[in-house]
C-alpha cells in the first residue's frame, strides 16, 4: 500500500485576499457593514494532481518558481488543506520545510534545541538522549549557550538542520534545505540525507532547484508546471526535459534583447552557429561518438590581428565541461573586415547524450584582449545510445578491465 496517496488534489487561492494592515484598517468600516465579496479571481496553485509514493521511495519534485512545489509539500505536511481532492498519508511526517522556522533569536542554542524539538513533536526524554549528538552534528559546541541572535547566519542554519534531522519520522519532507552552511557542512548534510535514505529506508520527498542533487538522490522525479503534474518518471529523463524547459524560458527571457550574454568590443559580431557532420552537411543534432564540426559565422567590422578563437561545451546550469581553443593550430595574423567562418572539427564526440550549450570567444591583438565572448549561445542536443559500460556522467571514458589474482604466497617470499 502506498505510504502517500494524492488524489485529484486541487488548491485554489483567492487573488488579492491578503491585504496590508493599512488597507485592512481602511476597509474596516466597509467590512463591518457587509460580508467580504466571495467572487474574487481564483488562482489554481495546484490543479488536479495525482500520484502515489511507496514506502522507502525517494521522490524529487522539480519545477520553475511558482509551479506549485512548495504548495504541494504544504499539503502533504497538513499545513494547508486542499480545495478539492484528498491526500492520504500513512505514517508520521517530519516537515523540514525551511529549516529553523521555530528558532528564536533570544534563546540560546541549547534552549532552542528543546523548543524546536517540542515544536517538531519530539518528546523531551528522547531529545535529552540525543542532545549531545545534535550539538556535535551542528559543530556549535563552543557557542551552544550563546543566544542565537549572536550567531552567524550559517551557524543558525546549522543548528536548525541538526535539530530537524534528529526527528524520527517515517516520511521526510525536505524543501531546499541542503543548501545550508559552508561546503563542508553541506557535504555533511548531504551524507546525513543519504544515510536517512539508504540505510534507514525512509520515504523522502525532496524539493530542490539543484537538479544534480535530485538526480543523484532520487528514485523518481515529478515535474510540476503551473500547478499541474507534468511528468512523473525516471530522474534522468525528467531532469533532461526540465533542463530543456528552463532553456526555453531563458531563451524567451532573452529574446527581447539579443545582446544579453555576449560581450563584444565592437570589432566583431557573432552572426550564427551551426553544426555539420563528417560529410559537411548541416545537422540540427550532434551524434554521440561521431565526427562533427561546429561552425561560427562571424562578421568582422574592424580589422583585427592575431586572433585566437575558443569554444566550450557547458551544461545548461553552467558546468563547464570542456573547451578547445585555436592556439598553435590556427594562425591568423590579420583578419580583414567581412564575414568569416571559424570551424572546430571534433573527432568522435565523447560527450554523452543530453542537452548542452555552447560558449565561444575570440581574443585579438598582442595583449590577447577579448574581442567577443558569450555563454549559452546555442543549445544543442546530443543524440545517441549510451554504451552499457557507462551509467552516468558527461563523458565517455575509454577504458578496459582486466583481472589477475594476487598470489599471497609468492609475496612473502
Amino acid at each position, binding site marked *: 500500500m502506498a505510504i502517500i496517496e494524492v488524489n485529484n488534489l486541487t488548491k485554489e*487561492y483567492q487573488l488579492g*485576499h*491578503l491585504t496590508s*494592515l493599512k488597507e*485592512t*484598517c481602511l476597509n*474596516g468600516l466597509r*467590512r*463591518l457593514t457587509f460580508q467580504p465579496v466571495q467572487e474574487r479571481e481564483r488562482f489554481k496553485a495546484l490543479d488536479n494532481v495525482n500520484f502515489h509514493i511507496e514506502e522507502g521511495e525517494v521522490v524529487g519534485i522539480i519545477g520553475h518558481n511558482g509551479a506549485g512545489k512548495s504548495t504541494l509539500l*504544504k499539503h502533504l*505536511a*497538513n*499545513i*494547508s*488543506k486542499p480545495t478539492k481532492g484528498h491526500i492520504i498519508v500513512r505514517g508520521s511526517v517530519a*516537515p523540514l*520545510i*525551511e529549516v529553523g*522556522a*521555530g528558532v*528564536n533569536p*533570544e*534563546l540560546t542554542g541549547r*534552549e532552542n534545541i*528543546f*523548543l524546536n*524539538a*517540542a*515544536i*517538531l*513533536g519530539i*518528546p*523531551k526524554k528522547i531529545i535529552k538522549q540525543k542532545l549531545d549528538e545534535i550539538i556535535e552534528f551542528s559543530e556549535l559546541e563552543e557557542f551552544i549557550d550563546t543566544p542565537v541572535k549572536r550567531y552567524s547566519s550559517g551557524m543558525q542554519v546549522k543548528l536548525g538542520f541538526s535539530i530537524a534531522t534528529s526527528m524520527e519520522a517515517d516520511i521526510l519532507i525536505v524543501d531546499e534545505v541542503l543548501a545550508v552552511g559552508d561546503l563542508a557542512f553541506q557535504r555533511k548534510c548531504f551524507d546525513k540525507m543519504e544515510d536517512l535514505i539508504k540505510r534507514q529506508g525512509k520515504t523522502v520527498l525532496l524539493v530542490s532547484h539543484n537538479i544534480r542533487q535530485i538526480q543523484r538522490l532520487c528514485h523518481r522525479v515529478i515535474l510540476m508546471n503551473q500547478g499541474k503534474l507534468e511528468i512523473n518518471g525516471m530522474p534522468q529523463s525528467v531532469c533532461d526535459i526540465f533542463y530543456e524547459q528552463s532553456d526555453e524560458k531563458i531563451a524567451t527571457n532573452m529574446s527581447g534583447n539579443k545582446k544579453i550574454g555576449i560581450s563584444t568590443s565592437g570589432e566583431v559580431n557573432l552572426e550564427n552557429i551551426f553544426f555539420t557532420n563528417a560529410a559537411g552537411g548541416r545537422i540540427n543534432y550532434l551524434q554521440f561518438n561521431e565526427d562533427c564540426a561546429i561552425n561560427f559565422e562571424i562578421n568582422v567590422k574592424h580589422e583585427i590581428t592575431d586572433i585566437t578563437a575558443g569554444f566550450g561545451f557547458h551544461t545548461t546550469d553552467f558546468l563547464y565541461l570542456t573547451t578547445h581553443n585555436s592556439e598553435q593550430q590556427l594562425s591568423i595574423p590579420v583578419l580583414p573586415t567581412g564575414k568569416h567562418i571559424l570551424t572546430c572539427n571534433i573527432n568522435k564526440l565523447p560527450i554523452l547524450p543530453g542537452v548542452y550549450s555552447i560558449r565561444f570567444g575570440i581574443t585579438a591583438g598582442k595583449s590577447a584582449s577579448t574581442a567577443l565572448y558569450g555563454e549559452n549561445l546555442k543549445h544543442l542536443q546530443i543524440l545517441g545510445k549510451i554504451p552499457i559500460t557507462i551509467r552516468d556522467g558527461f563523458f565517455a571514458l575509454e577504458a578496459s578491465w582486466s583481472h589477475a589474482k594476487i598470489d599471497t604466497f609468492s609475496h612473502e617470499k
Partner: protein
Amino acid sequence: MSEIIKNFFKYRELIAALAWKNIVIRYKQAYLGILWAVLKPLMLLMMFVLVKSFVGIQTDGFPYPLLTFAALMPWVFFQESVSEGVNSVTSNAALIKKIYFPREVFPLTAMVTKLVELIVSFFILAIMMIYYKVIPTVHLLWLPLLVLYSMIVALTISFFGAAMNVYYRDIGQAVPIALSLMMYASPVIYPLSLVQKKLLIEQSSGVWSEKLYTLYTINPLVGIIDGFQHALIKGIEPDLATLYPGLIITLITLPFSYWFFKRAENWFADVI
C-alpha cells in the same frame, strides 16, 4: 470541550515549551525579570488607592488595597490572556506556515503563560495578607475552581477572537478597547456590594432593577472577581447567584467558539 482537554494533554510538552519561551524571551534582557508581571496590578492598585482616598468607597471593614488586589488579580489575568490569546495565532505566523499541530495550542499557550504570572501575583497577595493580618479560611479551596472558570472565559473569547483576527486584523485593534471598557463593567475599581445596594436594595431603576442586575452578572468577570474576594479575603463561599448567569453563557458559548476556531483553522496557513 473534551477535545480541548485531550489536545491540551497531548500537546502539553509543546504548550509548556512555548509558554516557557514566551516568559523567558519577555524578561530575558530585563533587570526586574518576571517582577514586571506583578508590577501592572501593583501600579493599578496604587492608582485606585489614591482615587479611593478622595472618593468614598464602602469596603465592609476589609482593607481596600487587599480587596482591590484580589479583584485586580483575576482581572489582569483575564485581560492579558485574552489580548495575548487573540493575537497568538497571527504572531506565530512563521510557525503556522511551516509546521502542523492543532492551532488551539497558541491560545492555550497564551493562557498558560499568563497563569504563571498569576501565580507570581499570588505571592504578592500572600505578603499583603500577612501585613494586614488577614487569615484565609477553608473557602480558599474555591480558588482553583474560580481560576479554571476564568481560564475558560478567557479561552472562549480567545478562540473566537484569534480566528477572526487572522482574517480581519481589526479584531486585534478592537480587543484592547473592548477590554478597557469591560473593566468598568466589572467590580474592579468599585465593590460589587455597591451595585447590589443600588439595584437590589434601593431598586434605583424601578421594575427593571432585578433584570438589570442579572444583565450585569452575565459578565462572567463579575462573578469571578466577587468570588476571588469572597474566597481569599472575606473567607466566605462565593456567591453562586452572582456566578451562574455568566457561567451559563460561557458554557454555551465555548463550544461554538471552539467550533468556529477549528473550522477557521484549515485556512490559517493560506490567509495569515
